[in-house]
């Protein structure tokens, strides 16, 4: 559905996107993860025709998006990071306007507007002005506006920025439904790794304009190592305690951190019980188990936390 090959974008001397390549298959939900300023939005802007790449190729549904930009735009639905709606118009008027921008008119437009409102569960507020909506509701209309023309590819640029957890869950559910039930191909950018892990089958991690990891969720997680981290909180962790834990079968490493003994194991199920027995004589105040995640991958690959 989407092929991005050797994409480069420079702003003056600054290279914002450096040789980024990835593909997204039809029906897939692809996550583009990275911290703020990593180059996610610039990449998305080039895909949806808002920015002209300096180098590289973009193919959308078999269409060369650089040569046939207008045709490619008809296939894509774009949910921008900003709430790009007219606040003094009602939701229905806004959707009518955005549908018209995709060439819809008359009865067909009215039907599509109703359908989009249904998807985001805001049909009962259709006549209300956008400036009377909550942040989460605005975000949902922002999504609805990108669905009117029945796109094959939905590109979502950080669609949950600045909203409450409940609205965020609602949006994630909507996106998941669109992908899984309506078979819509989704490209989802975020700096929230939980969202990407929840929604996406495949993921690309971008940092300083460069794609530093690409693959399925499991493939990418393994980049940080396959081990689970068990953090045993202790008032005064000592080398003696660490040595005792190293003798437990299945334990790969033990290191001392402030207030904790950090143990890595390949399998929590097999190792946790004997580990707790071995630690029984110490004054353990708590246990935290960290499965490998994208946050850890990012930390592993860049030495920085994702939200730094």
């Amino acid at each position, binding site marked *: 559905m989407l092929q991005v090959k050797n994409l480069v974008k420079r702003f003056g001397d600054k290279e914002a996107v450096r040789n980024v390549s990835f593909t997204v298959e039809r029906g897939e939900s692809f996550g583009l993860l990275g911290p703020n300023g990593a180059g996610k939005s610039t990449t998305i802007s080039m895909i949806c*025709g808002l920015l002209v790449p300096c180098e590289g190729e973009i193919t959308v549904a078999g269409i060369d998006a650089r040569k046939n930009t207008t045709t490619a735009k*008809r296939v894509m639905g*774009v949910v921008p990071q*900003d709430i790009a709606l007219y606040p*003094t*118009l009602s939701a229905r008027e806004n959707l009518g306007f955005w549908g018209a*921008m995709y060439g819809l008119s008359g009865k067909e437009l009215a039907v599509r507007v109703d359908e989009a409102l249904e998807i985001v569960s805001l049909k009962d507020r259709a006549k209300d*002005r956008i400036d009377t909506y909550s942040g989460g509701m605005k975000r949902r209309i922002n999504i609805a506006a990108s669905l009117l023309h029945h796109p094959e590819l939905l590109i979502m640029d950080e669609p949950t920025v600045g909203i409450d957890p409940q609205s965020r869950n609602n949006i994630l559910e909507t996106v998941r439904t669109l992908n899984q039930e309506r078979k819509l191909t989704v490209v989802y950018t975020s700096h929230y790794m939980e969202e990407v892990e929840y929604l996406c089958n495949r993921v690309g991690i971008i940092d300083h304009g460069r794609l530093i990891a690409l693959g399925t969720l499991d493939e990418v997680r393994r980049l940080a190592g396959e081990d689970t981290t068990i953090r045993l909180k202790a008032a005064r962790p000592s080398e003696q305690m660490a040595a005792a834990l190293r003798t437990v079968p299945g334990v790969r490493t033990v290191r001392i951190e402030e207030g904790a003994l950090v143990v890595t194991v390949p399998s929590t199920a097999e190792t946790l019980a004997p580990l707790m027995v071995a630690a029984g004589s110490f004054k353990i105040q708590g246990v935290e188990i960290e499965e490998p995640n994208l946050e850890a991958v990012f930390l592993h690959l860049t030495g920085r936390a994702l939200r730094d």
Partner: protein
Amino acid sequence: MRKVLIIAWCALTRLARDKKALIILLLMPMVLIGILGAAIGNMMDGGGLQAFPVVVVNADQPAKMALPPGTPPEVADKLPVTDLGKMFINDILGSQQVKEILEVTTETDLAAAKDLVTAGKAVCALYVPPTFSADVLGGKASAVEIYGDPGDPTRTQLVAQIARSFTEEVTTASLAAQVIGPDQVQQFLHETEEQLPNVTVTTAGTKRVKAIQYYSAAMAIMFMVMTAFSRAKDILQERHDGTLARILVSPTSKAQMIMGQILGNMAIVLAQFGILMIGTKLLYQVSWGNWAASITLGTAFALAAAGIGTAAAGIFDDPRTADALTGVIGMIFAALSGSMFPIYLFPEGLKLVAKFVPNYWALQGFLDQMSGLGLSYLWLPVAILGTIGLVTGGVGAWRLASK
């Protein structure tokens, strides 16, 4: 073209929903037209200032002209007795031209006259001294004395100017012709009329333009430019909010988007003009002259204003900066073009500068139509405004497209 119209319609609808903007763009000009029309009406519509009270004390004694030594007595006997004080009061202050600005009453006692000034019942008191005629006819310096209200120096100066002119005139006349007669009085009145601050709207037309008409056109023009500039801010705000980008990620070209914005600007300004035109007609009974001509001119000016607004959107980046600076520019345009003070009060240099401002051409065009000039006087302002609109709109479109 459909998308261009939809974008324009969207801009118009959004403005129609903005109550604050509607108050500023429609209600405020209507109120200002009413206030300025009423306030300046006396000056403009009456053909001069409103008449104000002046008290005169004439102590002058008639006299004969002083003759050079050696003049035969029979010549001296033939000289008429001249009463210049009486002449000043009857022929000068009592003339139709002066009566339009001065309400003259006479007093015999100077102290009583001064009391009237102190009490605010007269703007000033004029005192014609007993030797006025004798001094003037004798070639000596003399003057009508004036006791004015210190709080009203302008009108006192006006009266002083009339008295001074008369004194100089009769002194010169008596020296030159040895006598002052009806011809000199008529000559003086003619010259005095030219010196009076007779504020009238001078156009080449056949109808007099009233203050309410003048300010209807002037305020409509000023606020149309304000609207166009506020649309510049709106376009920048749209850019900031991401709606322009969203239009561009749809299969809508940049050209369609920009044309839609320009057309939207023009539609808004034109709608504003239409409402103000009809509103002033209904509320103040303002005659805009030939309606077809005024609508043509209004359309040409709407194009110019839309072009300027688009150029501002292209030049500025930040909506707040645009809002602040275009507000100032709009006021300068208005002041220069005569929207605030009639342009014929301007010095020549400013009148020349005004010709570089589109508001000037629109105002002159409307005044021409209001004064009854025909359609032949329409083409120049329409052509200039149309050119301004196309050039500035083109520059704005180019700048917006390159952003």
